[in-house]
């Protein structure tokens, strides 16, 4: 059922020329797919997809759409080549599915080889009930470090591509009115919700060991809260609370914290990211290590997301008020 919704949405997206509608539909698409992830027992993934796909990426797309034309041009020719490539790919994929273990089959190799150890032993080796967190942060902690670095790299990319000149900043302070001034109810409600959102983000950050969630999701939620505030009260006000330079530093700080934990492990005599050595008791060490690196993840992600949004919004300001 959900899958067919998904297919319908995807087809609708191909057909629509209004990019705005496309973006909204892709938001729906993410929501749907997150529900589906939930249905497939992937709670953490659903969590992330909801906050990232439906939240941040929709906001980023919208921020971009403000700067570019809203309608797609109709292309003149029918792309037969593209269709051909797609059909070949599809044929290869379908061919590949023929020998796959069936959906939900408990005897599939996937469930036989590596995963059982995570499920059976992680509670003794790492000591966390959320197996996803223990795999993410400990067994495959290095992948997660890589993921944080990817986010950081994207942050660097956007920072360097969408730089804000001092002139724009100065102008923004004087000329740009705060947005959505007449939506009084909205502003009040948002003000009420902001602390709730931030507290919830902290809850997700530190509860990730026991339930779904963790640094990444928490970072995104935190950023979403700040973005909400920015959208309703304007850039200048937000940036007087949170200095952009400070946020940029934070993006780097999260990565440093994460990789620093690894280096400390190395100095203490373990391998890189081997949290066992952080404390006299391995399980306790794992706890400490995971807490720290999740914090690193959260900081970097939140800071990068906020920076991204700031940069895109500054562009809008620049184009609107810099003539």
């Amino acid at each position, binding site marked *: 059922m959900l899958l067919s919704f998904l297919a319908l949405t995807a087809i609708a997206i191909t057909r629509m020329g209004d990019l705005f509608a496309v973006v909204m539909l892709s938001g729906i698409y993410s929501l749907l797919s997150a529900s589906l992830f939930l249905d497939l027992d992937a709670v953490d993934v659903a969590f992330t997809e909801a906050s990232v796909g439906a939240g941040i990426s929709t906001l980023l797309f919208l921020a971009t759409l403000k700067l570019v034309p809203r309608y797609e041009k109709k292309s003149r020719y029918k792309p037969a080549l593209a269709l051909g490539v797609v059909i070949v790919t599809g044929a290869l994929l379908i061919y590949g599915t023929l020998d796959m273990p069936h959906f939900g089959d408990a005897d599939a190799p996937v469930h036989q080889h590596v995963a059982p150890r995570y499920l059976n032993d992680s509670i003794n080796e790492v000591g966390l009930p959320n197996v996803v967190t223990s795999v993410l942060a400990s067994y495959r902690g290095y992948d997660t470090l890589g993921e944080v670095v990817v986010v950081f790299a994207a942050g660097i990319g956007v920072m360097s591509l969408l730089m804000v000149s001092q002139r724009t900043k100065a102008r923004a302070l004087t000329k740009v009115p705060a947005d959505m001034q007449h*939506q009084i*109810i*909205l502003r009040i*409600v948002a003000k*009420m*919700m902001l602390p*709730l959102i931030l507290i*919830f983000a902290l809850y997700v950050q530190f509860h990730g060991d026991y339930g779904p969630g963790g640094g990444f999701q928490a970072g995104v939620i935190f950023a979403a809260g700040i973005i909400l505030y920015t959208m309703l009260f304007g850039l200048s006000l937000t940036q007087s609370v949170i200095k952009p330079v400070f946020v940029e530093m934070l993006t780097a700080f999260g990565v440093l914290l994460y990789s620093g934990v690894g280096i400390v492990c190395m100095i203490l005599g373990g391998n890189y990211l081997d949290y066992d050595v952080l404390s006299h008791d391995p399980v306790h060490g794992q706890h400490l290590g995971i807490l720290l690196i999740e914090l690193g993840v959260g900081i970097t992600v939140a800071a990068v997301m906020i920076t991204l949004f700031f940069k895109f919004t500054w562009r809008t300001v620049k184009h609107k008020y810099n003539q």
Partner: protein
Amino acid sequence: MDILLDILSWILLISGSFFTFTGAVGLFRFPDFFSRTHAASVTDTLGAGLILIGLMLQAGWGLVLAKLLLILVFSLLASTTACHAMAKAALKSGLKPLTYSDQENSAEETTSKH
């Protein structure tokens, strides 16, 4: 006692679903944007509220109840505010509600919007 709770929550869930469903019908069938907002938001509040309260009865005391309460608060605040803001923005952008002279059968809906 348990049976009683079960029955109560069941009634709440079913009635909540019913209201949600009517809202959806309204969303689909009503003639213009404002009446559709009306249908969606009013039933949304009631339907969501009933369903969540029904779930709360099932949850018993604990963290789950707190979370459900949080969702309730969120959806009460967010959904209504969002609909209000949406209608306001639509009105401001020049979308006019259908009036009696435009179309007879939608008059009641349009007069009751925010």
